[in-house]
């Protein structure tokens, strides 16, 4: 096993972790500010931000190629700085982040919407700064929802296949992830290898879902108390 190529696991975890961090902050940012926008603007933004969740991931990948392809204006521009999202592992981060973003955004928005506004007002009248209120009162009160969103986003990013394969393809040791490896091994009749990665994937997903359930159970308990 010493020569076994663990790269897909490492790459998948790396992509999922980094995109999860990105999505965590972006999701919270948009969830927080979308809630304050006028209704019509909010409705339009909401549709755009949620679309990646309902579109086939391949369609998301297609759009990403349209924007970041090396022959597209933005892709060419970024290439001047040595940044290339096509066929690179960090392109996988972009693909996973786009697809996982709506999960974080919607869960965080739900948590923020159920937040008792009076807590924020009370903080303001007591002279607390808005950033203190956000990080020390609003976020802890919405903690369970935000954690659940983060875990879901991580799980989605880890399992991303469609957009990833469109944008970064499959290159062993460079862009291979667990999901693209499973497909590649199955396609080349390496059933045992495919099964091994399937089991790895199953194990990770199970842990993730157990975590979500645990968080939800704790949240219910907190609401009761």
């Amino acid at each position, binding site marked *: 096993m010493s020569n076994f190529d663990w790269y897909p696991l490492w790459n998948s975890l790396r992509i999922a972790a980094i995109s999860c961090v990105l999505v965590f902050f972006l999701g919270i940012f948009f969830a927080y500010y979308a809630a304050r926008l006028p209704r019509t603007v909010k409705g339009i933004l909401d549709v755009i931000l949620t679309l990646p969740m309902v579109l086939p991931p391949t369609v998301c990948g297609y759009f990403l190629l349209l924007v970041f392809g090396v022959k597209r204006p933005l892709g060419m521009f970024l290439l001047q700085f040595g940044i290339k999202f096509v066929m690179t592992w960090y392109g996988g981060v972009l693909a996973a982040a786009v697809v996982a973003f709506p999960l974080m955004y919607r869960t965080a928005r739900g948590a923020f919407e159920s937040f*008792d506004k*009076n*807590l924020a*007002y*009370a*903080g*303001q*009248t*007591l*002279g*607390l*700064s808005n950033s*203190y209120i956000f990080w020390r*009162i609003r976020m*802890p*009160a919405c*903690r369970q929802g935000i954690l659940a969103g983060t875990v879901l986003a991580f799980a989605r990013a880890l399992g991303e296949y469609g957009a990833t394969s469109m944008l970064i393809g499959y290159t062993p040791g460079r862009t291979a992830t667990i999901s693209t490896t499973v497909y590649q091994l199955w396609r080349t009749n390496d059933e045992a290898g495919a099964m091994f990665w399937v089991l790895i994937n199953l194990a990770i997903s199970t842990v993730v879902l157990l975590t979500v359930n645990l968080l939800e159970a704790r949240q219910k308990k907190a609401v009761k*108390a």
Partner: protein
Amino acid sequence: MSLIVDIRKDLGGFVLNTAFEAEPGVTTLLGPSGCGKSLTLKCIAGIEKPDRGHIELNGRVLFDSAQHINLRPQQRHVGYLFQNYALFPNMTVRQNLMCALRGKYDRETRDQRVDEMLSLMRLEAQEKHKPSQLSGGQQQRAALGRILLSEPELLLLDEPFSALDAHLRDSLKIELRNMLHSFGREVLMVTHSREEAYDLSRRIAVMDHGRLLALKPTKELFADPGSVPAAILTGCKNIATAIKTGDYEVEVPEWGIRLQTAQPVGDNLAAIGIRAHYFNPSTAHNRFPVRFVEEMEEPFETILQFRWARQDQDSQPIWWRLSKDKRPQSFPKELGVAPANILLLYDSF
């Protein structure tokens, strides 16, 4: 030392348009739900922004639409006790109180102040508890303690007893009254309960449909509410349209009677009111034949409903409320009301 408020806010279908001055001591905004009293508090605290107007506290302008002044809630030094007390659920009682002193004094002074407040509010044993572990009364004291630590120049109380069980209210009312007394500055309270308003406040402002109808010392308001909405809010049960027929006489067509009054009747009289406690079978004036309709019993009082002899059968019966030990054996043939107990009610606008 005073609070001056003159604001207008249009919410489409509802317009808040109110102006008043509050003096030291407790002033209560009394009104039915949805009359704009909580919105008024929120405008003063800076949580809501009026469309136009002016708010001034002890000579400091908090809001002025003409001068484009709109201080943030943090800069207003106005304490706000929320209906649900708004204690931060993720913090202990002590941490909640500490929040009010953030960025002020040194660590030692802060600790000392919080200790003092915990003992004043009798919460020493609960200092490490989370708000969800406190009783309603403890939550109220913790929230009040947190506000007092922030040293506000004005205290706003939004329905302070609505989150409490009925049996707790009375004892907490006395407690709160004493605390407010020692606070010694302006307190503006909002409530729809006339008992709370009567008990706690020096002056009462009656609000209805976003407008201020009257601002009077508490006892004066109950003795002479002046308008129909104010009479209803102060608990007057018997109100009917009335016409001036003399300097000290009114006619009540719905009841088919004429009543003598103690106060001179104004030309724009709209209605008269008689409180349910004020009927008397043996009074010398304003006595008329009555017909008994129905009796409603309460634990210690009884309500006898009747109509005047010439009153329409379909019209609202009159309420006569008296303590059970004074209830007559048989219903009297005639009832009267002293001229001084006729409330003269005028058009409010």
